[in-house]
């Protein structure tokens, strides 16, 4: 930094002595400018000068200082400072020393958290860690945090760089229209409005709460809250207005636009919009949830398993009474959680699983209830000796069960819950089925009853294909 600044001082000095004592150069929007001090500025389309906070910021946009034009100190002083230049999008990644997150830079200084090393490698190559600049904490405020990059398709460094052709376009700077009215009566300033929602990503059936907070020195006449132009609530003569809105189970679009409109006593008004993105969660039989036992004794635990089929799994979450309890992010199709309900006899908890796929779609299982009872249900397992068979083949299905009270009987049922075989006592119960003629997927249930008549069921699926 020091070397380069002295370099500028030197060239600038040479330039001035050798070339001219005439008026300084004419400058136009997009020029790099300096005066007698070494600092170089970007002359924006809005007539303001923009500061390069660090040398590295400059070098993300320019290879050298060749095109810097020199103007007089008085001219420079007459140009107000518009702000700081941010890194050219895509060129380098940045971080701050006191935060482990690494960010890619998007348009106009939007920072996008790179969430994994794999993504960093995919975007910036195997030497990605040589392409990170530490920026001082003090300049972090020049940037805005955007959405994290969780998938390589969400950011392409080269495209981001080429889209930002210059600092004017990156910052969206335009020539401001001439001020035609300098001395006339200013219209009253509108008041302020702060509109928020407790949950911008609700699911169908959720109720969301909007809060609109409006202020103006003379007072607020009315605040209205609307969702997709439908009135949710109207509040008169108050600065804070809240309204509840239940998200419909079926909507035309997953995006709702909520708007708050405030009318002030001084006859000005102010409106603010929020986009509500309804999380589309598909209820699907492809996500199954089951418990090792659905009746547990007080203090007893049971394994809960969520299985996803035909979904490219990114994450599986298990919810107990609506609260997330376990999250599996290994990409495995199965997620397990050990549940110990904390209520007394007669209480129950409701569980469901949510699977997020690799592109962010979510799928939900049916609800499963686990009840706390005096007697726990038997622990049942059902197994087929083969889960994939060809037409013409046969297979054995075996049910076993255990329980402290002893097993009264075991049963094997078909997918219509017709009993195929009934076995008294605790010995394993096996049923031979086949030969199979029709292809398809068939579910078998194993059921067991303990000595106190508590029953439980588990299932297994057999797929029949043509050879």
């Amino acid at each position, binding site marked *: 930094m020091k070397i380069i600044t002295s370099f500028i001082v030197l060239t600038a000095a040479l330039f001035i002595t050798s070339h001219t004592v005439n008026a300084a150069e004419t400058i136009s929007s997009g020029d790099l400018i300096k005066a007698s001090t070494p*600092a170089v500025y970007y002359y924006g389309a809005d007539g303001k000068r923009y*500061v390069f906070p660090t040398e590295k910021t400059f070098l993300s946009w320019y290879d050298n200082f060749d095109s810097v034009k020199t103007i007089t100190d008085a001219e420079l002083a007459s140009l107000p400072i518009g702000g700081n230049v941010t890194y050219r999008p895509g060129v380098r990644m940045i971080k701050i020393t*006191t935060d482990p*997150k690494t960010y890619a830079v998007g348009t106009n200084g939007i920072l996008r*958290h790179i969430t994994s090393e794999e993504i960093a490698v995919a975007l910036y190559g195997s030497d990605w860690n040589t392409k990170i600049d530490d920026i001082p*904490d003090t300049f972090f405020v020049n940037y805005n945090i955007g959405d994290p990059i969780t998938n390589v398709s969400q950011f392409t460094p080269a495209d981001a760089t080429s889209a930002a052709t210059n600092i004017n376009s990156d910052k969206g700077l335009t020539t401001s229209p001439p001020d035609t009215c300098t001395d006339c009566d200013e219209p009253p300033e509108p008041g302020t409005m702060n509109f928020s929602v407790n949950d911008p*990503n609700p699911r169908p059936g959720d109720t969301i709460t909007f809060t609109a907070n409006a202020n103006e020195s003379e007072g607020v006449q009315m605040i209205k809250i609307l969702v997709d132009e439908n009135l949710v609530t109207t509040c008169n003569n108050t600065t804070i207005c809240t309204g509840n809105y239940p998200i419909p189970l079926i909507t035309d679009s997953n995006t709702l636009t909520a708007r708050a409109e405030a009318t002030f006593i001084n006859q000005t008004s102010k409106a603010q919009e929020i986009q509500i993105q309804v999380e589309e969660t598909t209820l699907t039989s492809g996500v199954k949830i089951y418990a090792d036992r659905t009746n547990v004794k007080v203090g007893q635990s049971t394994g809960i398993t969520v299985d996803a089929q035909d979904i490219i799994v990114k994450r599986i979450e298990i919810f107990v009474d609506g609260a*997330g*309890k376990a999250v599996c992010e290994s990409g495995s199709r199965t997620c397990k959680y050990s549940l110990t309900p904390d209520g007394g006899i007669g209480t129950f908890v409701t569980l469901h699983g949510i699977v997020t796929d690799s592109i962010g779609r979510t799928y939900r299982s049916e609800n499963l209830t686990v009840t706390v009872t005096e007697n726990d249900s038997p622990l049942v397992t059902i197994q087929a000796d083969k889960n994939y068979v060809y037409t013409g083949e046969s297979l054995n299905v075996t049910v076993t069960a255990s329980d402290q009270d002893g097993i009264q009987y075991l049963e094997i049922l078909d997918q219509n819950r017709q009993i195929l075989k009934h076995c008294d006592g605790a010995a394993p119960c096996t049923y031979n089925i086949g030969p199979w003629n029709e292809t398809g997927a068939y579910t078998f249930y194993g059921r067991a009853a303990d000595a106190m008549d508590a029953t439980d069921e588990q299932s297994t699926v057999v797929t029949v294909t043509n050879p």
Partner: protein
Amino acid sequence: MMQRIIAAFSSIAMIASLFMPMSAKALTFNPGTLIKGQSYSAVYYFAEDGKRYVFPNEKTYFTWYENFDNIVIVDDRTLGVIPIGGNVTYRPGKKMVKITTDPTVYAIDVGGVLRAIGSEELAQTLYNINWNQQIDDLPDAFFINYKMGSPIATAAEFKPADVMNSVSSISENKGFTSTEAAISIGDTMTGFVPSSITVKVGTTVTWTNQDSKPHTVKGDGFQSPNLEYRESFNRTFNQVGSYQFYDTYNESMVGNISVIN
């Protein structure tokens, strides 16, 4: 120039740390506390919005504080969980500033608003005979942290001592009120940051997930939905008491809010 200032600032902070009691696991700090990381020298102001504010240079720091006493040291991971909210501006009224490339001298009003002082006479009326020793050069890159206000027309408009006394803290200067507080949700290593705070009755506490994994906040009588990265949940505490809360995903992540009158 700027680097030199920051370097000097850092070294002072380092010296300060030598005299401070080490309380690395101190996770109890309220809005308005000065914090620093264990191995970093920079000192931050922890505000009501749960964010840390950067002192751009030593001069800014010393308009608010006389020394480096009462700084809470947190471990580096914990510091990383707290997002940066912005930069601290000069204490209003305390000093005048200018930038090197513009001769205009500005007084600083509440909220980091710059007000041009039009003449030497006016500067002398406001800041006495030695007014020209009370002007700091503001690096260009920090100019953007300030807002431009109207010029000061008459001395009656701006009384430096009154302006200075009208704000007692950085929070007040930034417009935060004591009816808000915020907690960042980190990972299982850091937990909630801070994990314990004391607030007044009527305060709204906002929890924001700063971790890439989902978390929740559950306490007696309140429960958040699943919070993904950067999602928030808030609750207003209208009753005196001690409110424990935890993350249903990771029940080892616990915190406490003491609500007092």
